[in-house]
């Protein structure tokens, strides 16, 4: 029996518990525990990816209760990919925090591990209510991390963040309740089976639930019009935290992918058909307004935060096509944009620190002591983020454009993607030229940035380059992942097996006891 699916959740959980016990212990000890857990998590994540490729969906029945009666974790290629991405970010963010910034509060490392636990759990669970639980974990932990180190702007941004997201959680409960009311089950694969024989009288409830889930996950993913909790929160958060937050919007994207290709697929003729028009509209508008926000930004962190939103819009456009190639392109872009945004947030910290009072305001300030190094990194990441050749952002966007060529809305999709790309180029070149070129020569530059300080950024940058060079193997992975999403039968079969008697009979017979 392999416990692999539960490990990505348990490792940070146990580390977090231990760190609560060590709350008064020395910071180096806390760092050590935290870093070891993160590295362990990374090892396990790599194992998870290889295992998902080799053996297909791996189902883990918690408490030995069979699905759909207990809670299951499902490790398939999609969740493995997300787990790995999170693990990578956790190591780089934690390294950055250990180099600078984790001393500002005494529970940083515990909260960080809990945040990881919540994220990994959300990616792994195969149960819609359990997903809610993990949403709670990651929401509360992220709130704590956001406030870490305190300060009025963080408090203000934190209130908006937590109030909006808690309201989103309440909506999540309403949506789950409606769905449970109609299907009587919480297991996601089982929901799909239940909806195949949906009582027409319940259709309205299920549709309402499906659309409410779009609002809930849209809030997490930061879709228009429920995205404005993000810019303030992300730009106020400490750099390592913001860098880890790069994965948070992708939890919403993941949930959208998962739920609409699996649970609600029976609502339409094709996977996701029911939700597709809504999602496409929201994605296009999110990209447009997100990039308008990038152009409007007055601070670097704000710019990156809006860039996060815009990238979510970009990747949800092909998701809304619900085709294998579209989803594959979206997943490639997801990996790219997560790494890029995470690196940009990390890079914003030494830039704003080096500019004394000017901080990260996009206005002329003192010359940076390590201006050339930082500028080079900024340019590389800006190129990646804007989707300009030659880095992965370009490859991702080009694939999205290509896959959408045959879509009814192709003209709109192309226009929005291309025009927003130009806005990104304009915004990043403005920001870069102000930060690195338009400097006040009379003020003394600050301290130099050491090589080790930039190690996390360089690691993420190296991964972006690898993602570009090895685009084909990554794309092979995302394509087979997408195939399994679009045709989820293998996932469903792995989770619930009612045999020949069919679902209705099996649920009925469950009333006879089965010991375990």
């Amino acid at each position, binding site marked *: *029996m392999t*416990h692999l699916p539960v490990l990505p959740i*348990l490792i940070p959980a146990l580390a977090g518990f*231990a*760190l*609560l016990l060590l*709350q008064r212990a020395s910071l180096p000890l806390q760092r050590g525990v935290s870093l070891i857990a993160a590295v362990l998590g990374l090892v396990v994540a790599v194992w998870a990816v290889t295992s998902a490729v080799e053996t297909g969906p791996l189902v883990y029945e918690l*408490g*030995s209760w069979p699905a759909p*009666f207990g*809670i299951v974790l499902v490790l398939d290629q999609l969740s493995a990919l997300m787990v790995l991405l999170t693990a990578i970010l956790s190591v780089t963010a934690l390294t950055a925090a250990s180099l600078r910034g984790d001393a500002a509060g005494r*529970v*940083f490392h515990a*909260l960080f591990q*809990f945040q990881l*636990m919540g994220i990994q*759990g959300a990616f792994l669970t195969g149960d819609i209510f*359990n997903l809610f639980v993990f949403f*709670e*974990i990651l929401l*509360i*932990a992220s709130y*704590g991390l956001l406030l870490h180190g*305190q300060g009025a702007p963080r408090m203000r941004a934190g*209130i*908006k963040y937590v*109030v909006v997201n808690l309201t989103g959680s309440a909506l999540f409960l309403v949506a789950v*309740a409606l769905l449970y*009311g109609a299907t*009587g089950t919480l297991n996601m694969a089982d929901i799909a089976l239940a909806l195949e024989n949906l009582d027409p009288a319940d259709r*309205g409830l*299920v*549709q*309402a639930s499906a*659309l*409410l889930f779009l609002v809930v996950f849209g*809030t997490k993913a930061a879709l228009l*019009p429920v995205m404005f909790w993000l*810019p303030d929160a992300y730009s106020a958060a400490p750099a390592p935290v913001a860098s880890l937050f790069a994965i948070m919007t992708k939890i919403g994207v993941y949930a959208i992918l998962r739920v609409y290709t699996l649970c609600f697929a029976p609502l339409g003729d094709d996977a996701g058909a029911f939700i597709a028009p809504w999602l496409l509209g929201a994605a296009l508008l999110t990209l447009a*307004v997100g990039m*308008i926000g990038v152009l*409007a930004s007055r601070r670097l962190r704000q710019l990156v935060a809006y860039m996060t939103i815009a990238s979510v819009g970009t990747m949800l456009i092909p998701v809304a096509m619900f085709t294998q190639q579209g989803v594959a392109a979206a997943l490639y872009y997801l990996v790219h944009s997560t790494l890029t945004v995470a690196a940009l947030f990390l890079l914003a910290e030494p830039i704003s620190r080096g500019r004394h009072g000017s901080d990260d305001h996009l206005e002329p300030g003192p010359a940076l002591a390590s201006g050339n190094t930082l500028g080079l990194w900024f340019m590389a990441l800006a*190129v990646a983020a804007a989707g*300009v*050749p030659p880095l992965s952002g370009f490859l991702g966007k*080009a694939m999205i454009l*290509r896959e959408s*060529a045959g879509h009814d809305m192709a003209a709109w999709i192309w226009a929005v993607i291309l025009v927003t790309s130009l806005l990104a*180029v*304009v915004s990043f070149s403005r920001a870069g*030229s102000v930060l690195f070129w*338009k*400097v006040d*020569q009379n003020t003394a530059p600050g301290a130099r940035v050491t090589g080790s300080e930039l190690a996390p950024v360089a690691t993420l940058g190296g991964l972006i380059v690898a993602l570009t060079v090895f*685009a*084909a193997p990554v794309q092979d992975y995302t394509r087979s992942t997408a195939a399994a999403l679009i045709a989820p039968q293998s996932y469903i079969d792995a989770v619930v097996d009612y045999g020949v008697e069919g679902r209705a009979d099996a649920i*009925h017979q*469950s*009333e006879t006891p089965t*010991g375990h």
Partner: protein
Amino acid sequence: MSLLLIALLPFLCIPLPLLAVHYGRTACAWVTALGPAIALALLLGSAPTVFGGETVTVAWSWLPVLGLELAFVLDGYSLLFAALILGIGLLIILYARYYLSESDPMGRFYAMLLAFMGAMLGIVLSNNLILMVIFWELTSISSFLLIGYWRHLAEARQGARMALTITGAGGLCLLAGVLLLGEIVGSYELTTVLDSGELIRAHPLYELTLVLILLGAFTKSAQVPFHFWLPHAMAAPTPVSAYLHSATMVKAGVFLLARLFPALAGSDLWFFLVSGVGLATLVFGAYGALFKDDLKGLLAYSTISHLGLITLLFGLGTPAGAVAGVFHIINHATFKASLFMSAGIIDHEAGTRDIRRLGGLRHKMPHTMWLATIAAASMAGVPLLNGFISKEMFFAEVVVESERLGAAGWLLPAVATLGGLLSAAYSIRFVHDVFFGDSRESLPKEPHEPPRYMRVPVEVLIGICVAVGVAPALVIGPVLDVAMAGVLRGEVPYYSLALWHGFKLPLFMSVIALGGGLLLYLWRDRAEALHERVFPAITGKGTFEAVLAGAVALSRGITRAFDNGSVQRNLAWLLTAAIVLGGYGLWTGGYSVGDAHQTPAPWAAFGIWAMLLAAMTALVVLHRNRLIALILVGVAGLLSAVTFIYISAPDLALTQLSVEVVSVILLLMALRLLPEHTPRESSAGRRLRDGALAVLGGGGVAAAAYAVMTQPFTTISDYHLVNSVPGGGGSNVVNVILVDFRGFDTFGEITVLGIAAACVFALLAQGASATESAHRESNHPLMLLVGSRVMLPMMVAVALYIFLRGHNLPGGGFIAGLVATVALVTQYMASGIHWSERRFTGSYFPVIGWGLLIAGATGVVSWLFGAPFLTSAYTYVDWPVLGHFEIASAMAFDLGVFLTVVGAVVLMLANLGKQPAHGDKEESSWSS
């Protein structure tokens, strides 16, 4: 293989100048030249193959899904361009060695130059259209960096951004066009696309594809109306202007026109668009050059004009026109690069490039004068120089093609002649105003000849100008032949490189152009006065900056409209989205009420509902008083608990009750930190909006809930009921669900509780300490004090009892934890913070940590038995005295829950209690 090396060598060599700069400037230049020199040698080594009629291709797979390959092609045309790029590049490297001053960071300059060179080579050598777009955009980026090289100059920064924006926009259009082209053809391989001209031109997407690709080409080659970035790019160091903005990068656009000539040319749309834009650019650029006082500005407009000329030639769509176009690309590269370098020398040695301040330099710089004069003469189209021959070909083609315009046929030759005339005029001005006339005294520097090797690059190029001009068929004929074979992919039409074609129309056009140019120069003052009267000062740059500033202002307005920082507005968006989407789903799917068995409501239920409604109405009215609002929220909670009791759900009731008590107490403590009343912030309109959202949202949820409750349904909970005792070892199904069936949810939720406690700590711990003064201690009611002491052991006993029986009867770790907490809270309330603080010393994190660890360990222990996380086991043991007893592993889990709840709540309580109260820190509203 060597083709790949040629393409990548400049990129691979980028670090070299950065390292070599530490060994001196000359060493830096030599090391920089190494890569391009090797690449050029390799290229020339491959030349015999190409001249033999072969096309060399190499390809590696990159991203098959996208159709992207690392594929390169070397045919006559790409050979010609690659040789131009590398050859002129080497000359530029030499020139820049002397041009850059001591204070300019030379390593960075050369590194960026190499990056550009690699990108440019990539464009011309790519055999894959997407790969070509990649290199195309790389030239934009490296050009951005090179223009902004002197970063302290505002015009350099602006020029760099403008160039990037315009050419970047064009690059995006090109990408779109190329993707469409690939869709049409089914392949992104250049050679395949070039062989599919018929298919492409017949396709319904042809027009769109063509326009998009042309936008890419026109922006890059500075065609009207996208030309304005080029003059501003002149803020770059002169070697950059000579290399990028005259000889190579701006040629990428016309390169593409020729490269895709077999695929795209030949339609009417092509003819009108390309030749029309080319013609307009030709005249506009030449006209603009005439009135520029900056030497580089003059050359920039002249470049625009000549690019227009080349565009026009390709626009004609005839093979012969293409021959002339390619020929002029070569010629323009040679004479314009040498002119730019001459301008750089003048600027370098005289300290200014303002024509009005210069004059009479022939005495001080005779050598430079000769070089510049020959180059300018070539630009003007004077015989025996290469510019003359391609201009003759141009005039000849224009005359031939004018027939296509019918009655307006005279227009084409006339406008072409006008362009030539203007070209001659500004060429004369360039030479005469700088080198002749009176010497000026007030120059920033005392002019003198440049260093010997700074002149060498110019001399080499001038040598080519003259050699081609005197013996074109001999010098350039074979090269042009093989290049055109590449462009036209097959038969090259007959063309003549002879100097003398007899007394024909093109010759007269040349004579008119040269003679008219001279006259125009002589009457230049009058022309300038007219110019200033007729054309108001609308500049491309001004428009560009205004549009950009407008876009930024607009974007700020849009962003503010969505998010003004108000939490309420964010919530309003969220609720509106939920109401619209949820309502739409319910509406289109059909809303129906089922006929499930419904319990008739007794009078008691009506009583509860009435109280609930009254409490909520009061809340709406009185919400600004925080304390009352909180109490009313508590009422709602209590009534829920009562409802649970009524419908026989004791576990839920107990949980609800204890949660309600503890959370109200915590909130009361938090209230202490706030002012008593919330300020009135909402306008009437906003209250209306919020009211509408509340009614719609609440009504919608109620309607949906009613539908759910009245529909018959089967659930998985039947399984839970049946399996609770045999599978979970407990007869309290709710508890078994919590600790066993769905123990993982509970595991998560107690973690949430622990995190929440950590958050409270993170938020409040810093700098907090008890600030209440000593006299407050005596203020606690005696009865409460004594009562609470007596109650403490009893309440703890109750908590233990509830905990122990939880698996079979209503209770469990969660409720027990809350009850125990209430017992502790009572002590707080009765005795005050100081009394409690003395007793509850230390951190509460260990309690939470151990609780969570116990819960987690219970789960992990099941691994030892080969079962998944959180698998429970139970057994019955006979204990002396106590009798038959059940031991369930789930109880250990429940113990973890218990400890976590106690630890978390007490920690929150302790930290909230330590905070100084709002205002003057006197009143603590809950203890008095």
